[in-house]
């Protein structure tokens, strides 16, 4: 089936070469970082994780978001997702690939990454995260590829993939839960030390992942003649709305606990993120912006007229995605570090190198996604 990715319009190739260009530039930046060390980034002793790990965390969510298609389609036999479910599975593959790239970019000694397998350490959540992420990649690759291959041959997919499909559903929840465990099991970092971190992660993931998928599917409708179908879009809209509502509800709970209890450790990060702390307020504007557009988008999605109009539906999905990206892809990780456990604030400024490498990883993800979608759409077009 791979050959289907090799035939395409000029626009398709222009897009591919654009992505390859971004990847090449980012690759050069990475070479520099590899030779100099992680000092090429803006990270420091206090802010020891930066945008790499923040992007990683966000992308785990996008990957988990794919389950919002798999679950209704395979468990509830929701037929309208017939065409689009494969896109969800392939999005998960691209997102997990990005996660692995972000983690690798963040390692001080990337050549030693196999040490995690050579010295398996069950008490480390990073060890489990590696297992669940690779497992999820494997499950989605198997399910997506076998099912698509059967479509291509015009036969029903073999029965042996069923268990893999079912397994991939709880597995999707596990990847984001374990990723939350990386943070919420650490003593001394109050902002993360909350039992609803995993539910928060899942809620934001189930809003952000499907939002991205809606946007991509709308692009595909224009450039690739692929129509997921109105019913699928509307259902996705409903899923996104409820997930977004849960997300903001959870955020509200965090605010209540911090500001009603008035325990300083619980308030510091929220102070820093939304009001500024000791004169440090780098993230105040982005975080307020994130909260505002997130709430507006969620409200918009509650109106059927807005959801039914393609333009306004796309706008609300884009706003929501951006909002959740700022919240989790920037604020969540930095918030835990910038006000440190000793009541000091160390700001963090990502460097050009760091941003370039991150963009390259996004481009690599987009490239994987483009190729996989090209194949999937060609197969489905042949079928029709």
């Amino acid at each position, binding site marked *: 089936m791979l050959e289907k990715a090799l035939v395409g319009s000029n626009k398709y190739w222009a897009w591919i070469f654009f992505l390859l260009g971004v990847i090449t530039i980012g690759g050069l930046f990475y070479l520099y970082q590899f030779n*100099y*060390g*992680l*000092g090429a980034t*803006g*990270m*420091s*002793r*206090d802010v*020891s*994780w930066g945008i790499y790990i923040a992007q990683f965390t966000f992308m785990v969510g996008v990957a988990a978001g794919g389950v919002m298609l798999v679950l209704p389609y395979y468990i509830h036999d929701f037929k309208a997702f017939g065409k689009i479910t494969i896109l969800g599975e392939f999005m998960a593959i691209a997102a997990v690939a990005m996660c692995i790239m972000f*983690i690798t970019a*963040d*390692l*001080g*000694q*990337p050549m*030693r*990454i196999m*040490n*995690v397998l*050579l*010295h398996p*350490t*069950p*008490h*480390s*959540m*990073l*060890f489990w995260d*590696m297992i669940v992420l690779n497992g999820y990649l494997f499950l989605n690759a198997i399910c997506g590829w076998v099912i698509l291959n059967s479509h291509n041959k015009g036969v029903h997919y073999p029965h042996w993939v069923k268990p893999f499909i079912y397994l991939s559903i709880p597995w999707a929840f596990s990847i984001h839960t374990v990723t939350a465990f*990386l*943070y919420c099991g*650490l*003593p*001394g*970092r109050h902002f993360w030390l909350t039992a609803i971190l995993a539910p928060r992660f899942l809620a934001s993931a189930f809003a952000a992942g499907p939002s991205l998928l809606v946007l991509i599917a709308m692009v595909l409708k224009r450039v690739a003649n692929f129509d997921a179908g109105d019913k699928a879009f509307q259902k996705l809209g409903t899923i996104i709305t409820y997930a977004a509502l849960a997300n903001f509800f959870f955020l509200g709970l965090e605010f209540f606990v911090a500001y009603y209890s008035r325990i300083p*450790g619980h308030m510091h990060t929220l102070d820093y993120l939304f009001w500024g702390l000791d004169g440090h307020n780098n993230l105040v504007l982005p975080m307020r912006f994130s909260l505002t557009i997130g709430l507006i988008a969620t409200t918009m999605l509650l109106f059927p007229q807005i959801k039914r109009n393609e333009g306004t539906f796309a706008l609300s999905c884009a706003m929501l995605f951006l909002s959740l990206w700022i919240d989790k892809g920037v604020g969540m990780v930095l918030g*835990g*570090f910038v006000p*440190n*456990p*000793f*009541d*000091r604030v*160390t700001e963090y400024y990502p460097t050009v190198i760091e941003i370039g490498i991150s963009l390259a990883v996004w481009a690599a993800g987009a490239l994987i996604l483009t190729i996989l979608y090209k194949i999937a759409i060609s197969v489905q077009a042949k079928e029709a």
Partner: protein
Amino acid sequence: MDVKRRNFLKIAGLSAVAGLGASSAFTQLLKGNALASEEGAGGGETAAGHGAPEQGGHQEAETAFQYGMVIDIPKFAANKGLAEKCINACHYEHNVPDYGNPKDEIKWIWVDDYEHSFPDASQYKRNAGLNDLPVLLTCNHCANPPCVRACPTQATFKNDKGVVIMDFHRCIGCRFCMAACPYGARSFNWRNPREQYANGNYKFFKHGLNPNYPTRMRGVVEKCNFCPERLAVGKPPACVEATGDTKAMVFGNINDPNSEIAKVLNANFTIQRNSAAGTKPSVFYII
């Protein structure tokens, strides 16, 4: 020396026995006891037998041997420059680079004020002068170390003397341990500390190179290790030695009731950094 030696043998025997009854994976998961790491460049000692006996509750089993330290802050306040002397002794001993900027900073032992050393202690109506005391901070060699629990490669582990050690050759530089340590005790090599000038001099070893201790490569984490390389030959840690006979620092096995440190702990009111985190720090402060 004699007592130490005997203790060592006793502990070696005990821990060998304990090592036979390997604790289950689940207990491991809860307790986060790392296993031995043979190539410990920073340690030299292995942690062959520290499999703690299983317990019903979630409290750590007390290891028979736990090195610890009492830091007497008023003595440091009375001896101007003593804290700096300790810092320099440690940083020379372990080839800790000095980059002269906070972003790349590496430190094994350092001074901060009371307020930022004990932020969870009451800062409400402090007595005069309290915040001017020089509080010497370092790794607490926690009896229940979250850094060891977090590390995915056991590159940081607790040895049979309760010392939390780094294996610089195994560390992958994920910095999970830095996120996990509630005391900011860990530093990362953001760049190559071994850089040299054309004439062969090292750029970042302020006091020159100590040939008796390995330098690190970039991309690994490091921190205070209670000088196992010195303990092994019967010397106290470099910082403790630097305090001379001021008794500003007392070092020893806190679990041996007959040790000097146990007696100091028994006779004085001491506090620890963020004890609420449940990490059981082995560094105690007399304020």
